[in-house]
């Protein structure tokens, strides 16, 4: 207590000294050094060590404070029992050899493929097609999927027809999207299964860029499902 009084008194003395005497900075510093030297002599090593230890002990808490405090709780909701599963049967079409500018239909025409939702939630489904490529060298030769229903040189057409509807619907590429709406709100189980067929029209005869007979062309029709 006495020591604290001495410290307070010394600071006060220094303050008064600065204000009243209007000395130069150099003189003030010299005076302050003298005062602090006296103080340091009075403060024992033990007190200084305790002060340093307290500051060091506080550092982790201060660091935690510096990182900022979070009061919210992150919530992740995911019902693991919900399952998405769509079955397509058959998944491939044995079309065989195709000639130029000719149409091919699945057999049976409208009920060739059955789509069943085997999951436990309703699903929106979408459909899109892709270019057909020569399997041996996809970059060398391909048929571009038509986006207007007409075939051309190295341009082929794909359609689907639903069993419960009349008329073929064009399948387009939609590279960046998920495709056109196919069966929205597809219900679960065999009771809600859907059937459809496909139609393909080959490119017209090409006098310049043809590939060798017997070559395999490969394409895909992507049927996407997302929970309603």
């Amino acid at each position, binding site marked *: 207590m006495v020591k604290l009084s001495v410290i307070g008194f010394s600071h006060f003395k220094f303050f008064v000294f600065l204000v009243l005497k209007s000395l130069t900075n150099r003189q003030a510093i010299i005076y302050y050094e003298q005062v*602090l*030297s006296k*103080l*340091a*002599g009075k403060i024992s*090593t033990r007190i200084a060590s305790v002060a*340093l230890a307290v*500051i060091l002990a506080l550092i982790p808490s201060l660091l935690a*404070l510096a*990182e*900022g405090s*979070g*009061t*919210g*709780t*992150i*919530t*992740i*909701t*995911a*019902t*693991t029992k*919900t*399952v*998405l*599963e*769509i*079955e*397509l049967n*058959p*998944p*491939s*079409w*044995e*079309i*065989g050899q*195709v*000639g*130029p500018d000719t149409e091919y239909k699945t057999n049976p025409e409208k009920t060739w493929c059955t789509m069943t939702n085997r999951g436990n939630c309703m699903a929106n489904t979408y459909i899109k097609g892709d270019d*057909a490529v020569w*399997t041996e060298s996809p970059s060398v030769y391909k048929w571009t999927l038509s986006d207007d229903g007409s075939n051309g040189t190295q341009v082929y057409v794909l359609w689907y027809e639903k069993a419960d509807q009349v008329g073929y619907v064009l399948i387009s590429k939609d590279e960046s999207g*998920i495709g056109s709406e196919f069966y929205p709100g597809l219900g679960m189980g065999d009771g809600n299964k859907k059937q459809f067929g496909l139609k393909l029209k*080959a490119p017209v005869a*090409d006098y310049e860029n*043809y*590939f*060798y*007979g*017997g070559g*395999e*062309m*490969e*394409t*895909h*029709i*992507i*049927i*996407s499902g*997302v*929970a309603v």
Partner: protein
Amino acid sequence: MARQIKYICLIVALSAIFLPSFVMAWSFSVSPVEVKIDNLPPGEAAEFNLTIDNKDNTSHTFILTTHNPEESERRQRRAEFPNSNWVSFPHQVEVQANSEAEVRVKVAIPSQQKWAGKDWEIWLSITPEEKELLVVNYYIRLLVSTSEEVKGGPNIALIVGIVAGVLLLACGIYYFRRKVKPRHPRH
């Protein structure tokens, strides 16, 4: 005559086979179908698992990507996810025959005030690598809502201040203790 021969040759040349291999139907499933992350502060990350169930008798590799759905396909009041790179996951997963595999997905939002208090939607796409003519592709809805609070990194200024304060205190004590030490008398 020459032109007719050329045309016949061309028809033969254009005759192509549309993958006549016979393939049995197989299916796979994914779970969950929707993941909702709420109150995620910008600067923090959240993780969850997806399960892919391969119901075929052979192993299959699945390709995982992200897809930003159109506004009409998103849930109500959900905006487009700003950057698909904030969602990280393995891009290929091999699942053994008649087995399940878990896929860890991490969503990390950068620590910026402009990402606070937002509601976004992005889809995770899962499709088999080996494809038949008809391919099934699943989309998992990922709904992310950020909190108003921004989780900042360490406050560098405060840390520097603490370190500087401790150093100054230590130097001060050392300096003044040296000054008050009595000098050795000269002989």
